[in-house]
């Protein structure tokens, strides 16, 4: 706490503008990439770009780079606990019914699938809208 302007870091204007520019570019990139069909990669790419944008905002706009390390730790903790919440919930929901004692697919979906099989005329339409949800 002994540098200029009463101990506070002043982020240079040029850096702020550069970061702002990069954020705009990344937004355009994320839209552009989503127009391209990447299959399974679409989701991770979109999230990766969002994470990069978040890091830019956090480090420069929110000045964490020059801030007390405890605050950086606080942010890290929040990220950690959100991942815990997400991953541990997915341990259940992504593997629901992995033993024979619980059905993987809800009853309403089973009935929809059955009726789709019974009425082959509709099957094409139903399958394109909602193929095999629950897996």
């Amino acid at each position, binding site marked *: 706490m002994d540098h200029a302007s009463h101990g506070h870091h002043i982020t240079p204007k040029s850096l702020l503008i550069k970061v702002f520019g990069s954020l705009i570019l990344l937004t355009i990139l994320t839209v552009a990439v989503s127009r391209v069909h990447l299959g399974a990669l679409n989701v991770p790419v979109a999230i990766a770009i969002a994470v990069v944008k978040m890091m830019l905002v956090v480090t420069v706009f929110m000045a964490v780079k020059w801030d007390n390390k405890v605050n950086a730790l606080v942010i890290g*903790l929040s990220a950690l606990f959100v991942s815990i*919440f997400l991953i541990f*919930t997915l341990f259940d*929901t*992504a*593997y629901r019914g992995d*033993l024979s004692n*619980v059905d993987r697919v809800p009853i309403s979906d089973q009935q929809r699938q059955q009726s789709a099989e019974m009425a082959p005329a509709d099957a094409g339409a139903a399958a394109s809208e909602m193929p095999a949800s629950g897996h």
Partner: protein
Amino acid sequence: MSETVAVPASIDTSVPKNYLNHDKSIKSWLLTLDHKRIALLYLVTISIVFLVAGVLALLVRAELFTAGETLMKPDTYNQFFSLHGILMVFLFIVPSVPAIMGNFVMPMQLGAIDVAFPRLNLASYYIYLIGGVLVVTAILAGNIDTGWTFYTPYSARLGSSVIFMTLAVFIAGFSSILTGLNFIVTIHKMRAPGLTWNRLPLFVWSIYATSIVQVLATPVIGITMLLLLLEKTLQIGIFDPALGGDPILFQHFFWFYSHPAVYIMILPAFGIISDLMGVFSRHEVQGYKFVALSSVAIAFLGFLVWGHHMFVSGQSAISSIVFSLITYLIGIPTGVKVLNWVGTMYRGSVSFKTPMLYALSFLFLFTIGGLTGVALGVLGLDIHLHDTYFVVAHFHYVMMGGTVIAAIGGLHYWWPKITGKMYNETMGSIAAVLIFIGFNVTFFTQFVLGTKGMPRRYYDYQIQYEALHQISTVGSWILASGLFLVLFTFIHSLMKGKKAGSNPWGAATLEWTHTASPPSPHNFDEQPIVTHGPYDYHALARVSGDGAAQTSEPELSESRH
């Protein structure tokens, strides 16, 4: 560690100006920014909640005295046990120790004049009060019979009272978040010179761990209650299976908060017990660092085990296995604490004052509570025990035998500091023994009921369970008489108690060594400077000058090892 703290002149003077009497207007109480007065506001409010919820528990137990209808209709019974749970969990035990003793003691143990954000502290109290008002509204609107867990889809199909109740939980949650936030910043930024992390009293360490859990977990109950509210009002279909939602997802949301919440409830109690064991054994708490860090470890691990409430819910086997495995890990830091507390008495000087009686009964009861918790974490066994009285008994052993017993012990311990008066030691001890006996009669029988298959939340039961239910109900009367004797002891102390000295227990933490009883409005007349650990009774003896002759030197003791 040799030299010396000038003992402030104020401790032994009889200056009448203290935080209680420096301004007696009602406004000065209701708008106070003083952490000590806010603690007392909480003490009064939370005690009322405890009384109401406790009477509900007695009525529930009385209804169970005979099979069939004893006192009330099933709907009344279902509402009573639900309200007992909701009040005890969200309005009593979560705020109890942090809001009352955390607020009163923690800033003084830090050598601070107040918490970091006094206005926020007062706001937290009023937010809690608004939550309380909403609970009363919900009760008046009637028909809250969801249990404290609000499981969907049952809760989503009840009347409007559930809206008030979820709002109440949402708002009471904010009070908890803001208190936690306030405490974390206070502990980071307001420590007295010389008070390093290694010299923090263990009560502060535990409040610190608690606050972290409060800040991280409570927002999730907020969003859960909000989603439940929207499920009820707009039928958003996230949790309601009739609309394509998943009721088990609700349980994940609910327990992501509510499991860490049991550590919000028990961690501060650990802190109190650590302090009590140190002071009343007049001995350094064994394994200080292990005890301190185990609080943090428990706080962290507490987030990884919520699924052990859901072994029979229909969740995937993989998650059951992961959650079960991590559940055992919590047993380890908890075991470290228990063994270190016992070890603290080793070669100590153990006094059997009332707070210590509570600490010893805590050790007894909490060990049972903890070990039965491990039994419930065993996958194959939990299937039989889940949702039976075994679970009811287990969490009462932990929550009541643990937290409430520790809280009452802590209240006796800090009572002279809070009020400036001593309580009657005989009455205090009798109450402690009554509570211990009553508690075991009430809840140990419930372990047996549980293994025999008695399901929880039952208004009526098969005749083969009646004898055990009757023993349990009789126990609840003994327990209640003990608790009323505690209340009487405190009222008696307020009216007729002897004046307390600044440090009647010979404790070495700042709230005893550097302030009068009761403290002045700003806690300390001069900024304390800390030169020794929180349980260093040798340093204390040297500083205060008395007892130095009897002190055996630390070097000597080492050679005797």
